[in-house]
């Protein structure tokens, strides 16, 4: 068991454990903060997979953007004054049954499939390569996504805007 493996298990445990907290925590704020941990874990896994650029983006966008957004959402939709920012769960048992079975199936498919897995050299940096691809082969998608973000921004603003009356 090398260092690589230990680090992997560490990140994996952090990710899954914090995700369990996210979906089970009664307190929304707690959930949001443990989600922070999840994102960190995932980011670590990216690093282990040699995706350094992605790991950074993950932290920047998710932690810096999405999570903050979610927290704002929580605060705007709950009475901050009352400390009791709690939220219950429904249909826990069927969900557990269903998703347990579902996970089991996914897992068994995964193990039973003979992946043609080959290990490659971990590239030192991916930024250059990604940049090249983005500006050549995927330039159209890149532009479209830019427009999409713009539209989403305007749309979100227009939806959330208070009506005048």
């Amino acid at each position, binding site marked *: 068991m090398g260092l690589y493996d230990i680090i992997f298990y560490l990140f994996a445990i952090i990710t899954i454990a914090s995700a369990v907290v996210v979906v089970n925590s009664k307190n929304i704020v707690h959930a949001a903060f443990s989600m922070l941990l999840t994102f960190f874990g995932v980011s670590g896994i990216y690093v282990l997979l040699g995706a350094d650029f992605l790991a950074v983006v993950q932290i920047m966008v998710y932690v810096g953007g999405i999570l903050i957004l979610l927290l704002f959402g929580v605060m705007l939709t709950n009475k901050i004054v009352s400390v009791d920012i709690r939220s219950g769960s429904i*249909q826990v048992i069927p969900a557990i049954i269903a998703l347990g079975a579902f996970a089991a199936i996914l897992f068994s498919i995964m193990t039973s499939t003979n992946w043609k897995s080959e290990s490659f050299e971990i590239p030192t940096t991916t930024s250059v390569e990604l940049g090249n691809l983005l500006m050549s082969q995927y330039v159209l998608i890149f532009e479209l996504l830019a427009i999409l973000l713009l539209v989403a921004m305007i749309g979100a603003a227009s939806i959330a805007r208070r009506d005048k009356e």
Partner: protein
Amino acid sequence: MSELANINIAILILFLPLVGFTIVLFFGKRFSKVYLIEVAIITLAFILSLVLGYSKLTTYINQDLLFSFTWINFGNVPNIGPLHIDLGIKIDNLTVIMLFVVNLISMLVHIYSIAYMNGDKRFSRYFAYLGIFTFSMLGIVLTDNILMMYIFWELVGLSSYLLIGFWYEKKSASDAGKKAFLTNRIGDIGMFIVILILFTNYHSFSFDYIYSQISNGVLPFGSEAWLTAAGILVFMGAVGKSAQFPLHVWLPDAMEGPTPVSALIHAATMVAAGVYLVARIFVMLTADAMLVIALVGAVTSLFAATIALTQNDIKKVLAYSTVSQLGYMVMALGVGAYSFAFFHLVTHAFFKACLFLGSGSVIHAMHHEQDIRQMGGLKKKMPVTYYSFLIATLAISGIPLTSGFLSKDGLLAGTLAFGELTGHWLIPIMGFLVAFLTAFYMFRLVILTFHGKPRNKEKYDHTHESPFVMVLPLIVLSTLSIFFWYTPNPVSPQDGWFIGKWVQTPHTVVPESARFEFMKTDHVEEHGETAEPETPVVHSHMYEHAMHWAHYPAMILSILLGGLGILLSFLMYQWKKISADKLAEKVKALYNGSLNKWYVDEFYHSTFISGTLGLGKSLSWFDKWIVDGIVNGTATLTRLFSRISGLFDTYIVDGFVNATAFVSGFIGLNFKKLQTGKVQTYIVLVIFSILIIFFIIGPF
């Protein structure tokens, strides 16, 4: 004239009234005089039918003129081969005579109506309806196949419906129209089934083709029973249209229509179409079918005559008399007196039309008073109407020198011969009884209406003779009720051209085993050496003998009975030697029965009509509460499931509850409960569905 010219004339005659109908219908509102076009067109049609009749009865007297075309082509049908439906026309002697009768009476009624219907708010609509009626009636007359017969049969029903209900503001009128149409439809179903039987077996509707097949021994479904059934079922159509018992109920009610319509449709032409139909299919009637027809005819004529005795509405008396006379004709066809039945159809058309138009003239003069108890003494005021009415009455009573005498006498002789040959004596007995009753009630009508003193002075004072256009048809028709149009010898119709030359009984095509004994081909021994047994024989010598034997007894008996009826009528109503009221008092039950038409209407109403309506209501209830109830019940049940699951949700352990809710949701998947409105439940269901699919068809 060539054959083709004749056929073209026939087609022209057929479609002229339709043209008239279209023109009057579309322009009647804008131009008030459009009805004159219709009258002119009918007159033209009448002239053409005279031309055609002359040509046919001289040049082509023994030859039928045929024309047909393919209407629907089914191509090469699997298992059957080429299949098509043809329509066409056939002109034989019967046809041209009927064309003449229909067009003549139609023309006279058109002319008569100009005055009679004057001032009606739907005046031109009335003429349009007359046009379409004439068109449909001519179609029935001209057709060479049973499908086209049925088509025009229904169209006649339609025009009858429209004309009976012409004054639809009156509920009784629209009721009567509806009743007429529906009652006719009952009979038509029988006729329609025959169409199905014939087409299934012969793949053709043409009368001639079907008859030739039957005479070649190809029976429907290979059995004589079906042939008998076919005969009786076609007769059902005639029962409806010719108002035979038990479907006679519509005709008296049909008197709600304008009186000229009653004369045209419900006395002279349309109701005779039933008789014409039976005459057309006469050759395929088996002995059993003929017996049924004869019995129905006899019962109808007696039944209707008994009702006519006591009616007080002038048109109702005539209506029942029409039913009775139609029964006569049907009976005559049933006993095999084919030519006399048709003869009576023609003579009856003239004198009955005359009677109806005469009654119309009276009603018109009396300002729509129809009750004969309010009349009396009109003879002085309306002499032309009176004398024409009297001639027609004499004709219907069968008094010598009239046309009615000739036809009725021959017809009764036919029944007598039939009784002699088959032992069914009941039929001639009923026939003669009706002759007596007819004379009685017809003279009762004449005496109460025209003789004696006016019973309603006020109305009497306002009456006057009808205008010329109304009187003219009366004169024409009453003239036609005298013998010399038909035969030079006033006691023997056989010497004349009508029976002697024009109308011959056709050869029957049914197998020998299904015929009456007297209609079988004579055996060689009976004929002697010169006989040709292969030649189809209409009637055996037996029948000729019996007919000869029956001629004079029937004549004497009918004159006697007719005279007796007239005498009795004078005794009771003119000279008041016998009190009608006291007689009625004595046989009160019978009198009431007759007055109320033997309660047939009431019987039908309480059984068939309310039965059907009741069935409809109960099925509607069934539909609403049971069939739909099951559907809604299923929905309610699933909702109930969800409600129960909701209760569980509140009171029992959380996890267990959710499982139950899930189960109920799963049951609800089939119907309704799917709509919990909770997206998350849907997702769980989706996941489970995926799981199930995996387990069923997955790689495990």
